[in-house]
């Protein structure tokens, strides 16, 4: 396991008890609840890839299983993830950037402060709750 992820792992599991660490590519997989009015399913597995340079480098997008759609069949803003070693998954376009396109990812030495995986997953939940806006 990536050494910075090891530091965060107890907090991740405490917050998301079904969280699992898998590789390759190194990732965290867990299930999150969805708004059943917006999506075709009330919950979905997601995967967050852990960059080699994590925590200096933040995660860049997340994955959902191929087949997750909006209610009515609309597609998520995503592309096929087979090319990055995740066949059967879609890479959702979700980037933590400001209006100038610069990253808003601000890590610190402390795994409990600054940006981390738990904060990133919370942002994903908020993004999905907004209907991917």
């Amino acid at each position, binding site marked *: 396991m*990536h050494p910075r992820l090891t530091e965060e792992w107890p907090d991740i599991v405490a917050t998301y008890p079904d969280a699992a660490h898998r590789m390759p*590519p190194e990732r965290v997989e867990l299930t999150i609840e969805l708004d059943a009015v917006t999506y075709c399913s009330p919950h979905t597995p997601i995967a967050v890839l852990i960059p080699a340079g994590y925590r200096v*480098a933040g995660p*860049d997008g997340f994955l959902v299983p191929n087949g997750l759609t909006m209610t009515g069949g609309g597609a998520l803003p995503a*592309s096929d993830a087979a090319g*990055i070693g995740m066949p059967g998954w879609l890479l959702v376009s979700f980037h933590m950037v400001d209006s100038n396109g610069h*990253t808003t990812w601000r890590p610190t030495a402390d795994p409990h402060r600054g940006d981390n995986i738990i904060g990133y997953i919370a942002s994903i939940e908020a993004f999905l709750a907004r209907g991917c806006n």
Partner: protein
Amino acid sequence: MELCISAIDFKTLQERLFRPAPDECAAFLATETAGSRIVTRSMQVFDGQAFERSAHGELSLSEAAQVDALATLKRDGHGAVEVHTHPGSGMDAAFSRFDLEQLPAFARYVQNKLPGRPYGALVLGEAGYEGIAITESQEALMLRIVGEQSAIPSWLSSGRPPASSPPPMNERRFDRQIRALGPGGQRKLRALRIGVVGLGGTGSQVAQQLAHLGCDEVVLSDSDRIEATNLHRLAGSAWWDPHFRRKKTSNGRRLFTRVNPSSHAIATGHLRTMRTLEWLKQVDLIIGCVDNEGARLILSELAAAYLIPYLDVAVGIERTDKTRVGGRVAFYLPGGPCIACADDLDFEEAAEDLQDESLRRIRVERGYARDRRVEAALMPLNTVLAGMALIEVLAFATAIRHVRPFARYDALTDQITAQHVAVNQECPVCQPAYGMGDRQSIERYAFADR
């Protein structure tokens, strides 16, 4: 076995341990395995209340203090080296009979608490020490203080002993240099094993100067081959090199063998290979002459984790609204500030540089990343920065002056400005990696297919 500790940490340790002299004092060093060495991540120096005095007058650490300290080490997964002082022993520090009687039982106790972790004991005098490493057997624990020469106590030499005894120096070749550095300085330079990462415009000149200075043991890393567009700035290159697709590392090796046919220049290829990363863990100094932030992040982490000094050289020419021509030299001395502490590492660019190529293509398609542009380059600028870097190498190795860790060069105003930088305790680069050795898993940066 070698126990590495940064000169900065050793100075703190020594000051705090000898403060209660003539009473003895003790500390636990939190350690990690780093290849065949042990590296020091942090220390806990005990105050007077942590000690008990036996009926015979010997001081020993109370059981409560031991339990607390070992619980912390266990929680963080570290090994331990117990250090205590013998004030007044000067150069003749050695374990006492009482120490040697207590040591086996204490070692078993610690190894029981910290299974599978390295354990050692060290007794320190004002100008000497004795150490024992207890693994499956007992062996001598050799203290290695990592830092600039002027920060290392005179009773300890900083250099790694050469792997094999070197041939006698050609005194005539170094005559003028020895007049400047002294024979001791020349020996210190020669004893260094230096890693040069990036052998382009700056790196080739760094390599050339190292060869002439008499640094005969180098590890050269670069995966590029020489192209026609490199010839205007690549020291040692020839017009025919692009035709034969000569590697830049091969040009680097040629620079060494021309000056000294018996030099040991090892070419390792791309930084992000297991081979290069393994070699770099074993050098005494890394000189980074790279053109991307991803490589700087890898080298910064490796240097912090394995307590290896890292000198980073950067040049830049910007011809936008405001023309800027210059560069900077940044010297990470373990325990001191790194380039990220100095705000000289662009995290966003580093993240992009290290991104998987297929993921990067998706980002470019979506408009979140730019294709890399070709940078302007001028050989004289590389020359100035390579020269500034090598002056710092001389300061580091021979103590001709103190190392100036951060300096910028502005070619338009012709000014060199020294920067004062403090350690950023929140730095996400050097702080989590510091002294973590093999647990930093630096190999994760290696490409899976190389």
